[in-house]
């Protein structure tokens, strides 16, 4: 049992770029069957966007809601698998851009799609231990999918940011418990200097996503004394629309508790931001006292599960910044040619 004494979300923010490509358009290019597409459309970063710029966007929204001076933030950690630099932390650029430098620890976390919740664990621990007053955890990605590969239909772009503090009176939600479940599972990987990841289709579902999420959630519920009746919303990592619903079914969770945070059908799989953007979407609608189960999944493989209880502060702070829906609804469709330019798939 990992008991958390005082770690609350005091500000949160989600960002999705403006551009969308429909799965049907990708299917048209590669001659695929359009009847069984994993998502309807996915978010594509602009020509001038990357993981750092999207992380800053989400962080600024979180700061607006937190209502704290950025200089009070003592840690900035960015979880991502699409760092703009191979060597040079994204965290330092984000910290500089929001005005949190120089008395701050900054670093990047990598664990495929669960890097964001990993950053959140670390920040939560620093705050809970009293080492910092506030910390900023971000999950952000401009995910890569090889042209024509199954991943290209879903690999998307987005960011989510959470400012963690100690005082429940200024919080929007309290982090009550978390746990992790990790094994060495070769379901998805990318070697250095490679542009696109490899994945083994037969590992993706049962031995990877479902095994780790189910065990992570079961351990959390059993060890910390929660039951499914305590959960009002369930948010899972969202590689496609089907997987989170199957995970809920395997765990015996009502699908109606999972659907409010399920946004991958409209924005795709935003990798390290995926489950965290689901959490943002739920916080945009949850009521004080409700409990949220959050379970990420990262290939390689592992899952972090959290129990988060919504606090009274949500009602006021929610309206201090744009909700995620503002960004989801702000969209312009692009064709595959423009998409190829945006995602640097045309090499000259």
């Amino acid at each position, binding site marked *: 049992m990992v008991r958390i004494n005082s770690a609350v979300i005091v500000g949160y923010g989600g960002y999705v770029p*403006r551009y969308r490509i429909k799965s049907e358009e990708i299917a048209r290019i590669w001659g695929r069957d359009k009847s069984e597409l994993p998502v309807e459309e996915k978010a594509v970063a*602009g*020509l*001038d*966007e*990357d993981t*750092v*710029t999207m992380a*800053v*966007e989400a962080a600024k929204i979180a700061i607006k809601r937190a209502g704290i001076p950025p200089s009070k933030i003592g840690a900035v950690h960015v979880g991502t698998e699409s760092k*703009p*630099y191979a060597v040079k932390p994204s965290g330092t*650029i984000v910290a*500089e*851009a*929001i*005005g949190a430098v120089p008395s701050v620890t900054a670093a990047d976390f990598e664990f495929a799609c669960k890097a964001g919740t990993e950053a959140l664990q670390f920040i939560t621990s620093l705050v809970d231990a009293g080492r910092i007053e506030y910390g900023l955890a971000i999950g952000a990605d401009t995910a890569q999918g090889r042209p024509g590969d199954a991943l290209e239909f879903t690999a998307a772009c987005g960011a989510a940011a959470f400012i963690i503090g100690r005082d429940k009176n200024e919080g929007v939600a309290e982090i009550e418990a978390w746990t992790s479940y990790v094994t060495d599972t070769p379901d998805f990987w990318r070697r250095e200097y490679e542009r696109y990841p490899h994945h083994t289709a037969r590992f993706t579902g049962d031995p990877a996503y479902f095994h780790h999420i189910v065990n992570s959630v079961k351990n959390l519920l059993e060890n910390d004394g929660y039951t499914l009746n305590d959960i009002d919303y369930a948010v899972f990592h969202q590689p496609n629309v089907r997987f989170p619903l199957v995970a809920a079914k395997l765990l015996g969770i009502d699908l109606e508790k999972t659907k409010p945070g399920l946004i991958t059908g409209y924005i795709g799989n935003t990798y390290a931001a995926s489950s965290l953007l689901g959490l943002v979407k739920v916080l945009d609608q949850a009521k004080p006292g409700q409990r949220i189960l959050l379970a990420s999944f990262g290939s390689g493989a592992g899952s972090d599960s959290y129990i988060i209880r919504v606090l009274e502060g949500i009602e006021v702070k929610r309206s201090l910044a*744009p909700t995620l829906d*503002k*960004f989801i609804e*702000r969209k312009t469709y692009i064709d595959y040619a423009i998409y190829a330019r945006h995602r640097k798939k045309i090499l000259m």
Partner: protein
Amino acid sequence: MFRIKVPRYWRHKDFRYRLNAWKCNHCGETHFFQPLICRKCRSRDFSRVTLPESGKLLAYTVVRSPPEGFEAQSPYIIGFIELDDGTRILGQLTDCYPEELKQGMKVEATLRKIREDQEDKIIAYCYKFRPAI
């Protein structure tokens, strides 16, 4: 090729990232980058100020023949913005198409890449403006 040299990019990051500028304590003139003397009154007395991140679009133009080194995002839009405190500033516009722009429309600052393909491979981040969300 026009190059953003790394030392200059580093020196200017306070303004490029956060619109942190300098104001002359004698005449009130705003300087975007650290000045030695005020261009208006010759004073050497300055204070740090953070400019507002929102304003209105006064004018814009589309750059279809960019200077060497800026081709990657071409065509792009340059806007002339009046910030909420009255400061006037030039900046690229993003997340919009020219046909969506109107004189007087509200815009807000956002951090974006302006260049990244130079020899030294430094990614130059800078404020841009987009239609207010």
